[in-house]
């Protein structure tokens, strides 16, 4: 048993947990943030993706104790309450979700992808980058459209700001 202290969605949290507890279970069970999901047990499906110190990670492959001291953002913290991040808005606009279960992980992956590629994304790159996120509902068609649209919106936003 260890006491783990970290920052989640801008809030400092401190909880006792088993040494073997995974970050995803810490987020879901200790903090009650159930937007981060568990869809497999082999680090394949990507429904558990969160941002840890600014990079996307599969929270099923990080121990909670490893995350001590880090800054974690989950789907609940991506935008201010009531607002949608441009990626979330694009998923809605382009029907990039159906059952919603893979969606938080998809969105967190897409945000990180867009940041890493600095606006330089095409369909083939998006499809390749989504390899670690499985969706069974959409056939990815509209997810790819949504990511490309969000990428264009965010790039336009960056250029407008410059």
């Amino acid at each position, binding site marked *: 048993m260890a006491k783990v202290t970290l920052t989640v969605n801008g809030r400092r949290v401190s909880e006792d947990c088993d040494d073997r507890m995974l970050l995803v279970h810490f987020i879901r069970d200790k903090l009650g943030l159930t937007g981060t999901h568990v869809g497999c047990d082999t680090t394949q499906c990507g429904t558990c993706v969160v941002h840890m110190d600014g990079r996307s990670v599969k929270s099923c492959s990080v121990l909670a104790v490893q995350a001590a001291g880090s800054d974690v953002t989950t*789907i609940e913290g991506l935008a201010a309450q009531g607002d949608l991040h441009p990626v979330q808005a694009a998923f809605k606009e382009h029907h990039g979700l159906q059952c919603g279960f893979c969606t938080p992980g998809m969105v967190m992956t897409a945000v990180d992808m867009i940041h890493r590629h600095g606006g330089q994304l095409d369909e083939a790159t998006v499809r390749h980058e*989504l390899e670690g996120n499985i969706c069974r509902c959409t056939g990815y*068609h509209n997810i790819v459209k949504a990511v490309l649209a969000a990428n264009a919106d965010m790039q336009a936003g960056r250029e407008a700001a410059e």
Partner: protein
Amino acid sequence: MGVEGIGARVTRKEDKRFLTGKGRYTDDMSVPGMKHACFVRSPYAHARIRGMDTTAAREMPGVIGILDGRQLQADGIGNLICGWMIHSKDGSPMKMGAWRPLAYETVRYVGDAVAIVVADTYAEARDAAEAVTVDYEELPAVTEAVSALQAEAPQIHPEAPGNLIFDWQIGDPEATDRAIASAAHVTEIKIHNNRLSPNPMEPRSTLGIYDAAEEHYTCYTTSQNPHVARLVMSAFYNVAPENKLRVIAPDVGGGFGSKIYIYPEEIVCLWASKKTGVPVKWTSDRTEAFLTDAHGRDHVSTVKMGFDADHRIVGLKVDTIANLGAYMSLFSSAVPTYLYATLLSGQYAIPAIHANVRTVYTNTVPVDAYRGAGRPEATYLLERTMETAARELGLSPAELRRKNFIRSFPYQTPVIMNYDAGDYEASLSAAMQAADWDGFPARKAEAAERGKKRGIGMSCYIEACGIAPSAAVGSLGAGVGLWESAEVRVNAVGTIEVLTGSHSHGQGHETTFAQLVAERLGVPIDSVNIVHGDTDKVQMGMGTYGSRSGAVGMSAVVKALDKVEAKAKKIAAHMMEADENDIVIENGELKVAGTDKTVPWFQVALSAYTAHNLPAGMEPGLKETAFYDPANFTFPAGCYIAEVEVDPETGKTQIVQFVAADDFGNIINPMIVEGQVHGGLAQGIGQALLEEVRYDPESGQLLTASYMDYAMPRADDLPSFDLSHQNTPCPSNPLGIKGCGEAGAIGSPPALINAITDAIGTNDLTMPATPMKVWLAMQANH
């Protein structure tokens, strides 16, 4: 059409909660005192249980209780059942072996549950489950249906000698034999339809809560049909009377058929909650999902199709063996019979059809409906046969299909179905145009210059949806009626709740059902809430599967809206001192036609509830219910064309183009319909190229029990899709809807395989067409 009415491409009302992490799935539920369950499962495919020792496990940290099947049976909990009776051709009823929620004499597949462990945390429950010692006497196992029918095969259930569940037929055997004997050409082909795991991304989960003071149970569960779950758990499993059992299916993360059925875990968690005195939650991990979620497909068939000298089909004879797994799941018997063989006429006028189907027990997880359910098997069989025949006869695939299309409706097939409407030529032409079929030879030549083998293939599918007319399915053996119910509640301020027995687990009902109300009443969709998935709120329902929510569920809403409108018109007429027959509803107002007299919708609603000035004798309130029983099945149909390039060095197939041209009847929301097609196509392409459940035939161990071993389609396995619609309205329901949920999965596998076999020049290829198989087929063809 209003901006939010029928036909409008409105974005979904439900999206915001899913996008912001506020969806509420069963595993997200937490109640005070809740504990966690882990099941002890058989590591053997077939074994006798000699004993079980839980002594050490009970001493493990956090353990609250360990319960087994003998205790469950002593408490009177019943065995699981199959709800559709099929009779063999000799008149005998299907041979159903006992399926105990927790096995205590014999286990029959790897993953068969034998005990439940309840502990403070899931990790503790899992540790303790591993400490339960079960003394198994391993028995020989068989996993493949053809092997299970052999004389020396292990016997799986005493009730089913030779592992044969039923030997059923449909159509006229003599007429078909005569037609094929007299045919100018007979095409013969063997078809294997690969076994699949549905894999909704949300694993199954259930939370059982027993309230001792009220003797009442609440079951949160990942279900496509919570009312059916309550009915079956009450009527057959003796969990609790219906009035003491509430079933809630909250947000459900995909189903594709696998969440129709009532599984052992729901029953056992409810019972365990009473036994242990705590709420009990169980959530499947992905390995358990592969081991225990009902699988789909797994047919082996031989086909003979006869043609006359003019290339018209004269007869079709099919012999199918279907693997139903270790136990008969809820609708397992209907899938390879009435959902399969009744579609063997396809889009073609075939004067004589005969199909014989044998279903078989094996030591594998039960097989039941998976997206398409029987119809993908029929379509794959027919469309591979048509393609092979066209090649043998030296005709273009389109020419042979056109020659045999059904062109006038209604059309009675020799296998029960009566097609009500369609235009198969329209979809074929549209698909060929979109795919630039005529330009293919040039593209093939260009690809050959790059060292690639390019192929093109088509598939013309039909399916039966709108499941189903209750009297018809009752006469065929169904244990339930397949109507739907709806309730429209107008609140005193004019906002509206629609309660439906349909269940949305990705289909977007909260949006499309609201669009229907917006169309009828001219109110904004934001003033309409759709309520579903809770037996305490919705009066009754049969749930969502078989692409039935639009055709059947929304038709029930139409009936309830008819009643609401009729009453609202009476009230408005009274308020405006007009004749109710002169009242029209437009843009959220009730108007006297041809005058400037209007009263807003909310004012009529308010009048209904204040009841200060209602027509004489009228009851207060504005709320109506309806049940809708469909008059016929609906028949979505279409044509899909795949174009592929095969790398001759590696056997890897790349899809370079995929075109889908569908007839879904009238469409409520094109955006959502397209999304359904995209998802169906991905699952069908997955079946054709990637996915297959494999058991080790000797040990019965599941070899594909994780995403490391079972090839789910990923984003870079798939192309973007080219979709179009050639809709003929369905005459059998008030909205003219046919349904769109399964088409993609039904029509796409044969299009892909026809394209690959075209590319590599052989008909001999089985799904999934992995690079290894395609490479081997190319070598064999040299």
